[in-house]
């Protein structure tokens, strides 16, 4: 039975739709011919500079001191106070930086993992299994993509207050455990990636539904699952509205902590912007390692979406 897992792998990879597209592009870019001129690179450089500038600005101010911003002869070269300012942020008792960092890491990881698991399961069923009501349910999922579920905050708050969950990290995790977008995304990906023969073959060999899912579905879903994980993780990390409502100062997430920083150190922007950068560093590290996947994930989602 273990033999099943190897041959399907090869077939799956051969059938990746991206493969053909990439090959076509490689050919056709040659048709489009010439490398673009100076102005295209100039334009892109302007875009990149404006993308980086706010990061640089927060480092510039965050590495100075309280007077840097008001100095008319302000230098464009960062000062040496970033570490000192960052330590001030971390030690600020009103901000609770370490709990916030932990809460952000923990909640984003759990949310992303759970969205991936539920979406892969449901996406597999929608893409490759036939069952009564499949089409209607899928249409339902797609329709709810347009529903701004954020607007359910009032009953959610009442519910969590009733359960005594306000201020608990669970209150921001539970409402985000599923995502209609995730299901739609996995359905699209799996229905294009896994050939039906493969499932049929596995069934004929006597594999149970679960085994087919595990050896064919999960293996094929891995690239899409990785992208969905990244995307969900970044989104969960950056959430503010609901965490701001339901969490309290003792145990915030990083965005909520940042909002506390502003009300505490309004005057001293060197501290506020050092905190901003500090809170963004974890995602920058993630981006350095997985930015490429995030880019291709967003692009792949666009073509299919």
């Amino acid at each position: 039975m273990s033999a099943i897992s190897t041959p399907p792998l090869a077939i799956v990879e051969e059938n990746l739709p991206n493969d053909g597209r990439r090959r076509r592009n490689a050919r056709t870019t040659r048709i489009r011919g010439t490398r673009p001129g100076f102005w295209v690179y100039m334009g892109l450089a302007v875009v990149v500079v404006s993308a980086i500038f706010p990061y640089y600005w927060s480092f510039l101010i965050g590495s100075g001191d309280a007077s840097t911003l008001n100095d008319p002869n302000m230098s464009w070269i960062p000062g040496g106070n970033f570490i000192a300012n960052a330590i001030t942020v971390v030690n600020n008792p009103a901000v609770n930086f370490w709990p916030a960092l932990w809460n952000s890491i923990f909640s984003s990881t759990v949310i992303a993992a759970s969205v991936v698991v539920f979406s892969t399961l449901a996406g597999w069923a929608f893409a490759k299994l036939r069952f009564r009501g499949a089409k209607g349910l899928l249409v339902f999922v797609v329709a709810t993509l347009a529903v701004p579920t954020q607007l359910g905050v009032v009953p959610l708050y009442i519910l969590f207050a009733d359960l005594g969950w306000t201020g608990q990290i669970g209150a921001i995790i539970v409402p985000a455990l599923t995502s209609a977008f995730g299901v739609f995304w996995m359905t699209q990906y799996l229905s294009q990636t896994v050939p039906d023969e493969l499932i049929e073959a596995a069934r004929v060999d006597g594999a149970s539904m679960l085994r087919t899912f595990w050896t064919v579905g999960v293996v094929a879903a891995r690239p899409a699952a990785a992208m969905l994980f990244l995307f969900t993780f970044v989104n969960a990390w950056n959430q503010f509205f609901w965490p701001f409502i339901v969490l309290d100062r003792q145990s915030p997430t990083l965005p909520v902590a940042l909002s506390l920083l502003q009300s505490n150190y309004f005057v001293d922007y060197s501290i506020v912007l050092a905190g901003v950068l500090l809170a963004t560093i974890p995602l920058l590290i993630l981006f350095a390692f997985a930015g490429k996947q995030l880019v291709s994930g967003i692009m792949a989602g666009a073509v299919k979406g």
Partner: protein
Amino acid sequence: MTATDTRATASPDSPVRKPERTPRHIMSFSSKLSRWDLKVSPYLYISPFFILFVIVGLFPIAYTAVISLQEWDLVRNTGTFVGLDQYIWILSQEQFWVALRNTFSIFILSSVPQLILALFIAAMLDRNIRAKTFWRMSVLLPFVMAPVAVALIFSNLFGDNHGLVNTFLTDIGLPAIGWHKDPFWSHIAIATMVNFRWTGYNALILLAAMQAVPRDYYEAAMLDGANAFRQFWSITLPSLRPTLIFVIITSTIGGLQIFDEPRMYDQNGNGGADQQWLTITLYLYKIGWGEFNFGRAAALAWILFLIIMLIGLINLAITRRLVRDDGGRGVVRPRRRKKGASQ
């Protein structure tokens, strides 16, 4: 061929057919088990998602409607039915209309320039440039930063007194702008935050759609002597229409709910001294968790929900018309083919 095979498996009488094909492997009991497996598994796979999604996603939206018809008592944690009173109260507030105006103003100021910019960036990225991955990643860099962080940086840049933008303006001899005083300029500042974070993201989506346009079209256009601009206008843009509408709809849903940026635009987070940048969601927060009036907050949430649905439906109507106009060109065609193959 494949499609018929699987469909046969799915149809109710298929379990009878299946054992026929591989009779020697299957005994009676396991055959029954397999039949049961086949029928029940799909529902087992989708139910975790649906149960959770209905409880934490859809039920709250529906229950918001119930609460919006009540005067909610925080102490007893129940409500008394008051009909449409909360809606009437909301609609009679001047602040609501100011918030509505601000929300739409910020939305227009952020989505229109953003879309145009994203189109240009995508067109540049679509050229045969060197170091593609580097440029694409750089463009996405702002997306990584939390909206709260973006808002803190930009509210500093747009500071009335020592902000970089005003310093620059006065340096070149222009008058300083009251970014935190004048409604219009505060909307510009907030829209800039939104644009900073989302332009690159949308550019990548549009880039993906551009790359799906069959390159033969460009080849043919080139043979006909069309220049780069003409190609963009007559081939790229029409093919992008469905994706454009998709981007517009998603940015409508997000944009009309804007909260983080206006909330963090100043220290108080009340939308300015004269509600210059009070948005609907900010107003919802003020009513719900400033005044703790959940009935009114729920009514406002539903009003916003209806507005978003209305705009969404208008967009959908436009989409349908445009897609039909487009016939089978560009992105539309491969999509239809995919749809046919997967179902």
